[in-house]
């Protein structure tokens, strides 16, 4: 009997697409050897099943139970390389995705894993930081702060203990690349943490994972155990313990200082900066807090050199960006490409245009605090500098497309209500401003608002932007204001007629 060796993703979204039922069936077959891999990130094609061929992997897409006889017999299927969505990407951080078993350490190593750490170990800490400076890597979580600069500050601060903290509180709706990294290539994240630990002389690592990601936390705990057994978790000849800590549903805990408060077990309330965490962070010790994707980018930078990373992208945005396209598009999923492609091209080339029956209305980039773009503004290049110039943010790379059925007033109200729910309460502009903002939008949505209310909202938004302590309050007005700016008619049509007796 010939045994068919089949690859099926075990990613949370693959399971949500039905991979679990396929696995159940395949496991019961004596003529099948089933390997659970990470996902390719082409979620619109999930569940996908792959098998080896002399010319590389062959894939069956959107597989149902009825398709399995064909898959097992090896009939049909197409080379993975012929899927344009995948072939047109430049995968670096996500190069292993869809190919390897997430927890197979030997497989990770045979595909270049821990080469970055090896390179880092051959360098003195200042030389590692110099390499990062050359790479011009900026933090991928949203703030886009130059990574080397944080490391320099932490390494120059003398302390008995220093910490490396992974921000895995990926709270922006529309984003999931951190979840993919943790579930699909956990050793890459650990390698990035170890590189950072060597550079700053850290004594302990933490991974603060949002509660909504149980599979990611499980994968990381297992990866940590395997790395421990392989004696990989060592820094300067000392054990470097890494602990996974779960959050409890607070969005603002993705802000680095609120995250540190939460890690210490308190209310996740934002701290005033300075001092910055790199100087005084967790338990007032020098702490590097960076997003999952930032750490996962490090192994390639050290292995291939900072110059390699700096050669990709645009002037102010080097390397690749992980776009996560969702909403009413045909082809939702992860796209890793160098910075610089226009938003329009990203939506056409990768998003594949609108879902059947949908017409484009607006796209939000950068999560719930990101600006909305109408059709006329889609030619903006996807890079930090162009977005900054437009008063927008790339955030964590989330792109959500809305169609003609979207009620912009309701959506604006949804954004403000979100901030009101999630505000930590430390600063007044965010705590009170978001509630007042929601109330005004409630009035407008209910047909009781006036032009004066919208003027008041604009004024309030300006105050929140300028005076809030962190990006939650500071950015919250942007999606609301861009909705009003680009879809003013919808707002004006909902206003109550003012003046005279008409509204009595």
């Amino acid at each position, binding site marked *: 009997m010939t045994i068919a060796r089949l690859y099926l993703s075990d990613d949370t979204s693959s399971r949500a697409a039905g991979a679990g039922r396929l696995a159940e069936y395949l496991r019961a077959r004596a003529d099948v050897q089933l390997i659970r891999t990470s996902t390719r990130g082409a979620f619109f094609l999930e569940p996908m099943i792959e098998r080896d061929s002399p010319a590389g992997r062959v894939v069956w897409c959107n597989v149902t139970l009825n398709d399995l006889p064909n898959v097992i017999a090896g009939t049909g299927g197409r080379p993975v390389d012929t899927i344009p969505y995948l072939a047109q990407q430049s995968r670096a951080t996500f190069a292993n995705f869809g190919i390897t078993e997430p927890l197979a350490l030997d497989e990770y190593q045979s595909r270049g894993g821990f080469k970055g750490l090896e390179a880092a170990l051959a360098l003195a800490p200042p030389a590692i930081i110099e390499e990062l400076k050359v790479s011009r890597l900026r933090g991928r979580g949203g703030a886009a702060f130059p990574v080397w600069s944080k490391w320099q500050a932490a390494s120059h601060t003398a302390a008995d203990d220093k910490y490396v903290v992974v921000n895995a509180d990926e709270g922006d*709706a529309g*984003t999931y690349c951190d979840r993919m990294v943790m579930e699909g290539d956990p050793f890459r994240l650990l390698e990035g943490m170890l590189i950072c630990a060597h550079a700053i002389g850290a004594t302990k690592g933490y991974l603060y994972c949002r509660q909504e990601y149980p599979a990611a936390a499980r994968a990381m705990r297992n990866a940590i155990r395997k790395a421990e057994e392989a004696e990989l978790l060592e820094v300067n000849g000392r054990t470097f313990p890494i602990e996974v800590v779960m959050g409890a549903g607070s969005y603002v805990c993705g802000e680095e200082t609120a995250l540190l408060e939460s890690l210490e077990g308190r*209310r996740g309330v934002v701290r005033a900066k300075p001092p910055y965490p790199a100087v005084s962070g967790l338990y007032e010790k020098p702490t590097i807090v960076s997003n999952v994707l930032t750490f996962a980018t490090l192994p390639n930078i050290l292995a291939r050199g900072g110059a390699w990373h700096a050669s990709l992208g645009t002037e102010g945005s080097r390397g690749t960006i992980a776009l996560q396209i969702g909403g009413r598009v045909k082809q939702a999923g992860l796209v890793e490409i160098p910075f610089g492609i226009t938003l329009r091209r990203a939506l056409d080339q990768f998003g594949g245009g609108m879902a059947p029956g949908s017409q484009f209305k607006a796209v939000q980039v950068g999560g719930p605090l990101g600006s909305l773009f109408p059709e006329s503004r889609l030619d903006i290049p996807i890079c930090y500098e162009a977005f900054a110039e437009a008063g927008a943010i790339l955030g964590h790379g989330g792109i959500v497309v809305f169609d003609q059925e979207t009620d912009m007033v309701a959506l604006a109200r949804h954004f403000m209500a979100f901030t009101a729910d999630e505000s930590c309460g430390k600063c007044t502009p965010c705590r009170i401003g978001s509630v007042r903002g929601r109330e005004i939008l409630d009035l407008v949505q209910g047909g009781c608002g006036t032009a004066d209310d919208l003027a008041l909202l604009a004024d309030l938004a300006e105050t929140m932007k300028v005076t809030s302590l962190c990006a939650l309050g500071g950015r919250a007005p942007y999606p609301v204001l861009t909705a009003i700016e680009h879809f003013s008619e919808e707002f004006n049509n909902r206003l109550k007629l003012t003046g005279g007796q008409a509204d009595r």
Partner: protein
Amino acid sequence: MTRARHPGLADIIASCRPHRPAKPNLLKTLLTIQQALGYVPIAAVPQVAQVLGVTEADVAGVLSYYPDIRTETPGRHVIRICMGESCMANRCPAVFRAVRDYLDHGIGEADPRSRFTVEAVYCMGNCALSPTVAVDQDIYGRVEPERIPSLMEPYR
């Protein structure tokens, strides 16, 4: 009374007492209690405060801050419906209504709410397969409202 209802509570709290000189971690303590009991009884607040050497206000403050810490027993099954932007774009309010309708009319039981807890959540990282619904640890993508009755069937 709490002690009688939750015989293990004192031991759980004691196990969270930090080794000196470390400071107590309130969030971790409350999550440990929740993991053991399914929720954190309000009556546990003074006990936690006493054992960890903090004020009751400290404990209550952390307890009320985090949305995922419950103070009441959840239903046997917890249904979470995503309200994130990608799910909003893909008509998740209709999914929410379908779940409510199912529990109100479709299940044919006097008090389905004791068996099911329904929560609107904000993003489960399944945005490429919106709209998303999770029942306990099972996550479902591309959920059309019409699919709710058959999706819920195994959990009745």
